């Protein structure tokens, strides 16, 4: 599929109509009395790009941690293609096709750009344990194929020329892209992006928005993106969920979200919450309607 075609379609015109593949029902996660996520509901449809927004501490990262099996929900069910995934170890969930990036970059620090991506290919498609140990003839062929595939994923993010560099020597924006390349290397159907534009300027964010759109089309991905940057969310997402205090307070198209008084209240606070002092900490916060 050409990227030009995708670029021309505006987010609002794409109504998600695929099959629901990732479902969450009444999912909750409590940390010693603090309800980080409560009664969370999700019907993620095949091929859609869903945005999840909300003030800091609203439960967005907890949501990703619960979906990927890094945290176990304290209540509720999560199914992926109809299969219950609560309680599966993170590597099994990743192998089923759910990949993520991290808000705070977590590359494999001591390794090269290429090896970061190779590591994420897991043992799938590569030589097996005993095959590797005894260096069976099939082993070299498989390893070469894996390396080529890793290079393809680097090329998709424009990082192919940097494959030999140490991962942590890359500029910040490139490290973020490498995280996406690494997530793609797990060959996911669902990609969870945790604040991919954090620390980027307006131009870099615009480029990243286009890049995510291209990857979405090229790899046939379903994407969930958590982001504070409203320009990225509003341009990219067909549907948005707004979280506050662990609960979904609003859900709809970008146009609906922009006009929703509950969202504006969650971001700016009513007089009451401002007086609580709970909502005034986040100086860089953008109101959804503000940037577009």
């Amino acid at each position: 599929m050409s990227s030009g075609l995708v670029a021309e379609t505006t987010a609002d015109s794409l109504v998600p109509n695929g099959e629901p593949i990732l479902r969450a029902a009444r999912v909750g996660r409590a940390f010693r009395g603090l309800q980080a996520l409560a009664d969370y509901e999700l019907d993620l449809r095949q091929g859609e790009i869903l945005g999840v927004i909300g003030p800091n501490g609203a439960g967005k990262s907890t949501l990703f941690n619960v979906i990927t099996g890094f945290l176990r929900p304290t209540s509720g069910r999560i199914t992926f293609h109809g299969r219950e995934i609560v309680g599966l170890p993170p590597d099994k969930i990743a192998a089923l096709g759910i990949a993520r990036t991290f808000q705070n970059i977590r590359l494999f620090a001591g390794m090269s750009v290429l090896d970061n991506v190779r590591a994420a290919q897991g043992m799938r498609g590569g030589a097996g344990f005993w095959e590797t140990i005894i260096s069976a003839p099939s082993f070299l062929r498989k390893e070469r194929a894996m390396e080529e595939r890793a290079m393809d994923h680097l090329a998709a993010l424009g990082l192919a020329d940097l494959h030999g560099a140490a991962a942590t020597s890359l500029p910040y924006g490139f490290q973020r892209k490498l995280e996406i390349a690494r997530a793609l290397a797990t060959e996911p159907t669902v990609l969870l992006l945790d604040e991919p534009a954090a620390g980027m300027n307006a131009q870099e964010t615009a480029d990243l928005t286009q890049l995510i759109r291209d990857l979405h089309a090229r790899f046939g991905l379903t994407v969930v993106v958590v982001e504070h940057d409203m320009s990225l969310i509003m341009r990219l997402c067909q549907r948005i969920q707004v979280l506050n205090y662990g609960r979904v307070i609003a859900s709809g198209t970008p146009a609906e979200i922009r006009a929703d008084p509950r969202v504006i209240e969650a971001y700016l606070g009513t007089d009451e919450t401002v007086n609580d002092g709970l909502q005034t900490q986040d100086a860089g916060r953008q109101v959804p309607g503000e940037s577009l």
Partner: protein
Amino acid sequence: MNFGQFGQQFVNGLSLGSIYALVAIGLAMIFGILRLINFAHGEVLMLGAFATYFYARSGLPFLVVAVLAVLTTVVIGLVMERVAYRPTRGAPDVALLLTSLGVSIALQNAAVLAFSAQPRKFPTPRLIEQQVDLGAGVQISGTNLVTVGVALALMAGLTLFVTRTQLGVSMRATAENVTAAQLMGINITTVIVAAFVIGSVMAGVAGILWGARVGRIEPLMGFIPVLKAFVATVIGGFGSIPGAVLGAYILGFGEIFLVAWLPDALTSYRDAFVFTALILVLLVRPQGILGSTEPEKI
């Protein structure tokens, strides 16, 4: 010291360092992934030497005996992982440390019961016991030559494995960041099992080489090599495999040349010098020579 003596001591230090390196690699590898200091690694070495001793009675060629002995240590390593370390995975570091000390003591005493504490003569093949004349007055023992050759070959193999293979790359990724590795679909158990297999191969080979070097074997023989290897990994930077190898060679050369240069009256203090070196390293550079000081980001 003339050139001939220097050459001899150099090869001797290289050989001792090679054995320490083989043991230290296993320690560093398992620590890197599990944060476990596996003191029972020395008992894997000891059991490798005893397996060689018993298999050699069958009259099979020594190379076949050695391969069978190494396979035996692999099985021992796998059982150890399954029985002792898998159930304690994720436990606090102190619990892991105590578990490994417990496994070590249990295996030592099981060996005393099974084989008796009596030292036995190690069946070193006559072929490699001979002296080799390298010319210029340098005479070295065949054992040292074989030790250095075998160790370098194994380390070259390991380097290829961790840089070129999918499993090797997965192992390095897991050592870097277990959480991220798991979330990228890496099965941690496979990686840990692989680390124990590789560590046990190295320790088994080290047991055979140590037996050939010392000439006799006994159930407590694993303690000193594993302690020295531990010092080597600390000097080099704990968890770093190249660091462990570097530390092992520094230790090997240091010990041999200390003994060669010190007056006879002081040579029995060689271990005291080793541990003094350890204390100095910990004071001056606690992260080790190749260890990183990068704080963990949260």
